């Protein structure tokens, strides 16, 4: 496993953090003056600073600096291969698994850089859960799917407590009503939409702070998609959510803020309404008008 954080200039990064967001944006004089819009918020859960990601020689992300606000939904949009999934996977260090992947810069979660040596990715992933593009429940029972996280992290003190966690997670994921009488059936026997909600239940069972969703509805039919979207709305009361999506309508429906990525660069970021009604950067306009895609 290669993890290239060593070249990061931590002193400079922390100095930048202390500066006023507005002053900082002004101080950063990148030639293209990217991104357009407000990349920083007053109450961030996650602060990403100067994030570079390389796959071998290919640079996948270039100097990304972006805040993710508490109990907000941030949507990441952009054409295929623009780096939005890569960005997402940097937030819970899933990129560690890729041998050729090298990351530099900092990702601060509650004031702590998750790429610091002292941070254990295992613990991090319990705090930052993830839901994948294709529903991927374990080939085990529904109960076991949800109970797995609490079990490996030792969250439940007793069998009863574990039962409660499973019930509550399924309830929150809006699945309990449909499966309460068949918890010992295989999770893989559910329909696609149910499987994806099971994966969400599995993710929230360990009470994470952040949930990352990588196109969670792209493999689902419109009705299942609608259910997932209303679920995301409910979940944001308790969790910070980052969602990658190809559907601009979906981004419009579920998110408060939207970030537009293009060719590994963060082009524009702002309140979702503003981005869709009044995109300022040319590339964003092209994408939203459907000229890039």
């Amino acid at each position: 496993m290669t993890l290239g954080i060593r070249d990061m200039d931590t002193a400079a990064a922390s100095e930048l953090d202390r500066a006023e967001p507005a002053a900082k944006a002004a101080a950063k004089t990148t030639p293209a003056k990217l991104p357009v819009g407000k990349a920083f918020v007053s109450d961030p859960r996650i602060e990403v600073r100067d994030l570079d990601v390389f796959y071998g020689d290919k640079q996948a992300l270039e100097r990304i600096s972006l805040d993710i606000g508490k109990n907000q939904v941030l949507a990441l949009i952009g054409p295929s291969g623009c780096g939005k999934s890569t960005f997402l996977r940097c937030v819970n260090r899933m990129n560690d698994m890729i041998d050729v992947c090298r990351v530099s810069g900092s990702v601060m979660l509650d004031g702590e850089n998750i790429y610091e040596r002292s941070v254990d990715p295992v613990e991090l992933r319990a705090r930052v859960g993830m839901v994948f593009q294709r529903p991927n429940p374990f080939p085990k029972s529904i109960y076991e799917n949800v109970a797995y996280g609490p079990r490996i992290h030792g969250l439940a003190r007793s069998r009863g407590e574990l039962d409660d966690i499973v019930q509550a997670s399924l309830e929150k994921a809006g699945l309990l009503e449909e499966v309460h009488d068949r918890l010992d059936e295989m999770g893989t026997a559910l329909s696609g939409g149910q499987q994806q909600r099971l994966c969400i239940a599995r993710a929230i069972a360990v009470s994470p702070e952040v949930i990352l969703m990588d196109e969670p509805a792209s493999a689902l039919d419109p009705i299942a998609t609608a259910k997932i979207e209303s679920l995301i709305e409910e979940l944001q009361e308790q969790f910070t959510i980052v969602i990658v999506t190809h559907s601009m309508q979906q981004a419009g429906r579920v998110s408060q803020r939207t970030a537009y990525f293009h060719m590994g660069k963060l082009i524009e970021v702002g309140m979702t309404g503003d981005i869709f009604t009044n995109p300022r950067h040319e590339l964003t306009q092209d994408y939203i008008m459907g000229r890039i895609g």
Partner: protein
Amino acid sequence: MNNTTEPVLLEASTAGRRIRASLARRHRQERLFQWLGIGAVALGLGFVLLLLVSVIAKGYSGFLQTHIRLSIDLSEEMLLDGAPVTEENLRNGDYRRAVRSAMQDLFPDVSGRRDRRELQRLVSNGAEFMLRDQVLADPELVGRQIDLWLPADDDVDMFAKGRARSNPGDSVPSRLSEQQRAWIAELERSDRLDIRFNWAFFSHGDSRDPEMAGIWGAAVGSFLTLLVTLVLSFPLGVATAIYLEEFAPRNRWTDLVEVNINNLAAVPSIIFGLLGLAVFINFFGMPRSAPLVGGLVLTLMTLPTIIIASRAALRSVPPSIREAALGMGASRTQTVFHHVLPLAMPGMLTGTIIGMAQALGETAPLLMIGMVAFIVDVPRSLTDPSTTLPVQIYLWADSPERAFVERTSAAIMVLLGVLAMMNLAAVLLRRKLERRW
């Protein structure tokens, strides 16, 4: 390209005509290919059938053995020469005299040393030992007169089964004399000659006398050898596969290891035998002909098979399962043992059983480490000298006695039966354990 006219698409009618013209040829090709496939399968099946028919036709009578019913006098005078009845004395009793006198009693008018010897040759040399074992198992028999079916000599057996003919012109002449054949006819008339199930074949070790020779020693040797192989190669192979597939970084060293594992799978097995001889026996001083060494050698031979099958099984587990587990915060080890391994297990077990079946049929490397020796005793431990089923088949096929032909084929049937059972087990196991996702 033609410069004078613009390239144009074909008219629909022209295209249709040309397609129809080519259809007949395409269908013909398809039929031809199908027939070729069916022919290939039929040819393969034909050869298998030929093998089975030939082995069964030659070997079924190996499971049978001609016996002679003798009325044996088990008096103390006969067995012990008047010595007291103790286990020690019973063990050393003169059972040969008991068998001989019983045989003599059947034909009281045979006289002269030569004729008597000819008569005694009808009964197996091993008959006295079978009698002894019976008496030792049940000492109550001493002092009684019992009727016992004892195995006949292999020449009698061959003659009675019709495998050796009496006419001089026959391809396989009987080794029995005119006189002996007359005695056999006499025995048959008085219901004292019968072809019965050959228990000795399943309960005895090897012997120079075909009628006394059995596969039990070789079967136990094979079992012990395979036990060592399984216990060593399964955990080692699976652990290697898991490390290489799930943990090892991809670099020049792991590439080298991978290439060498694949090479190892292609090394002729006799080389492994030489290695076993040089390393385990000559260097480490392990005993010759022992199942322990056989197992070690076969482990080396089977490991690549198991590693390659296990890696394929691990690779067939969808990466989404790994991502799901890692995304939940499971460590790599937890991911592998909780999720990947259970899904890969059916494939790993199938690979292991197939590797074991290969090891069971292996002969060449075992010749090198001395498991080809003539061993009568059934092995009791991993270090006892022993042989294995395929080596036993090889040994018998090499023996001059006519009666070993059918025993060779019978042993082949047993070996094939065990192999078929192992492969069936592999299929059933896979079906039982396979999970869908």
